[in-house]
């Protein structure tokens, strides 16, 4: 059992690609607009550049205490304020910060602007762990934003990853040479970056496989694959169980010296069957029913439980059957 458990754990570790809880690593810098001439205004009715964060997780993440900076040598340049519920980003939602260099104007106003900024970094609340960074193209046009073509997707810097693995990640993610980031035609603060109509999976499938043959073949292959793997695993487990059972049976045979009582001893002097014989028969029946001497039955717990039947008309619930009858004076 221990060996099987170990195999399962090791297999899971081997096939896992990297397990992250829903946490700071799920936050991405999703979109930035450095030069806001005619776009959205802040709560004071003024226009300035903005930074959009996106929560890629399927749970809430509080970004209070996280740091944003345009200078890697100063990772704690701007801290997202603590003590306000507005810093909690719900699942798959956005938070917009105004980069006007005036942090006293409101909750989400950074102490730097995006004028001429080419790199933007997001750090965890320890001020050391880099969560994400993006490189903003020089000479960004006015009223155009730069960001992830699909929300949260594209190249990013996961915690503890090297530049090499970062490149590998961008390739694995199939995000193309631009790393999944581009100048976006239509800035969308606090909204999805995907502005084109997206085909549903069903529509894609209709175009790709109008007769359903490909899906049928794929799905049946997967169903068979699943069940063939299960078959293989349980075939080997079954063989192992049979082997163990045979060994056990052999051990029982070897360890037991069965003393067959002589015919004279089977019966006692008064003609009744000897108690030892009765005990031997009982043990034999027990071993048989528990599959030690036979493979006919499943191994059961052997525990007998009597449950009280709560039906009113049963013997258990019937007062007339369970209580003593009152004496009747005749």
């Amino acid at each position: 059992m221990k060996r099987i458990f170990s195999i399962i754990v090791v297999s899971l570790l081997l096939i896992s690609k990297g397990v992250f809880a829903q946490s700071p690593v799920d936050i991405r810098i999703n979109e930035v607009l450095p030069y806001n001439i005619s776009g959205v205004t802040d709560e004071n009715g003024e226009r300035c550049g903005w930074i959009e964060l996106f929560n890629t997780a399927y749970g809430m993440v509080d970004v209070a205490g996280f740091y944003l900076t345009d200078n890697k040598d100063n990772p704690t340049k701007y801290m997202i304020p603590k003590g306000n519920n507005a810093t909690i980003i719900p699942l798959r939602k956005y938070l917009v910060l105004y980069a006007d260099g005036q942090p006293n104007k409101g909750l989400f106003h950074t102490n730097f602007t995006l004028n001429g900024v080419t790199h933007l970094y997001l750090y965890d609340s320890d001020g050391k762990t880099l969560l994400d960074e993006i490189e903003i193209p020089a000479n960004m046009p006015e009223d155009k934003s730069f960001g992830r073509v699909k929300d949260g997707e594209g190249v990013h810097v996961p915690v503890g990853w090297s530049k090499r693995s970062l490149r590998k990640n961008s390739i694995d993610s199939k995000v193309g040479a631009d790393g999944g980031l581009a100048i976006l035609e239509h800035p969308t603060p606090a909204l999805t970056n995907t502005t084109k109509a997206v085909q549903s999976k069903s529509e894609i499938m209709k175009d790709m496989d109008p007769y359903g043959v490909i899906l049928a073949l794929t799905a049946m292959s997967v169903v068979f694959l699943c069940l063939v793997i299960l078959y293989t695993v349980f075939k080997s487990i079954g063989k192992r169980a049979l082997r163990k059972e045979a060994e056990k049976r052999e051990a029982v045979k070897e360890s037991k010296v069965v003393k067959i009582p002589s015919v004279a001893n089977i019966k006692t002097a008064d003609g009744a069957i000897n108690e030892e014989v009765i005990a031997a028969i009982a043990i034999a029946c027990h071993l048989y029913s528990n599959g030690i001497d036979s493979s006919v039955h499943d191994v059961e717990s052997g525990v007998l439980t009597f449950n009280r039947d709560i039906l009113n008309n049963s013997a258990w619930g019937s007062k007339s059957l369970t209580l003593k009858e009152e004496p009747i004076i005749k």
Partner: protein
Amino acid sequence: MILESNFAANLNQFAQYTGFANVTAGHIIMILIGLVFVYLAIKKDWEPLLLIPIGFGMVIGNIPLFPGMQVGIYEDGSVLNILYQGVRRGFYPPLIFLGIGAMTDFSALISNPKLLLVGAAAQFGIFAAYAGALALGFTPAEAGAIGIIGGADGPTAIFLSGKLAPDLIGAISVSAYSYMALVPVIQPPVMRMLTSKKERLIRMKAPRAVSQQEKIIFPIVGFLITAFIVPSGIPLLGMLFFGNLLKESGVTRRLAETARGPLNDIVVILIGITVGCSTQADKFLQGKSVLIFVLGAASFFVATFTGVLFCKIINLFLKEGNKLNPLIGNAGVSAVPDSARVSHVQGQKYDPSNFLLMHAMGPNVAGVIGSAVAAGILLGFLS
């Protein structure tokens, strides 16, 4: 005089709210269908645990209503609508799967794992119905939901149609449950057609003993393998194997009893009554529903056909003495335990001393796993 006229006006207004003022031929037809279901359940004993809630639900759901009274199942905030969310959002089916897991003994499958493959083969019915539905003009999502009828698994059909084609839930689930009840009628002709008398007499080797350790390992390993391959099937597979672990662990008897007993009963009542209610005449009496019933029947035939055929193919590779009786092939379509019972009854017709029930339970429970995996695949591709 004023009192009289107000009284008459009130009576007249009240009359507008009654069912008599709003009744249509559709309502009457659906109420009659519901009553037929109730009759079949009580008189013929056809799946009474399902047909009575569904049948009476049909009667409830088809009482003509004046719109806006917030009592109909499709009216937001009504009690029935709240109960219906379990179907619509798909949280009743996994709970049923928990109960199925807690009441299913996988010993037959564990002792003879090749029966798993028979369960896989019977899933062809799903994809035959899927292709048929596409050919009849359904969208791929609708076709996927219709196809799962071939899995012969009511909760899976409800789960998938709730996700892929909510408008068709009523027709799909009623179709699935109707054909599950009709398994003893649908399957035997196909089984007889595909098997020779000699094959029907094959006696299968008695299943070996299965230790408790193997029974505990099965749900854990089974879940890990299937869920890693088809994560979209987690709600169903997770609950199925979890329920089975509760049963086999030996230390959670109370939880297992609750899962397969009271909890399962509660969910069966809720799922049955709300599915029945969802068959409102205006949504159910459509040409689409007729097509769904036709496709459902076809998928059952194909599933039975491929299950039996696959047994015959496997037999080509098995030694004498290890061969499978092809009559157990039909049991791969889930419908636990009815289709296994059909195998047994058919086998006994030709050899009264041949007991196939335990052998047929193998592909039967494999079919449950197979249809849950197939549902996960369809969900992954089409949702």
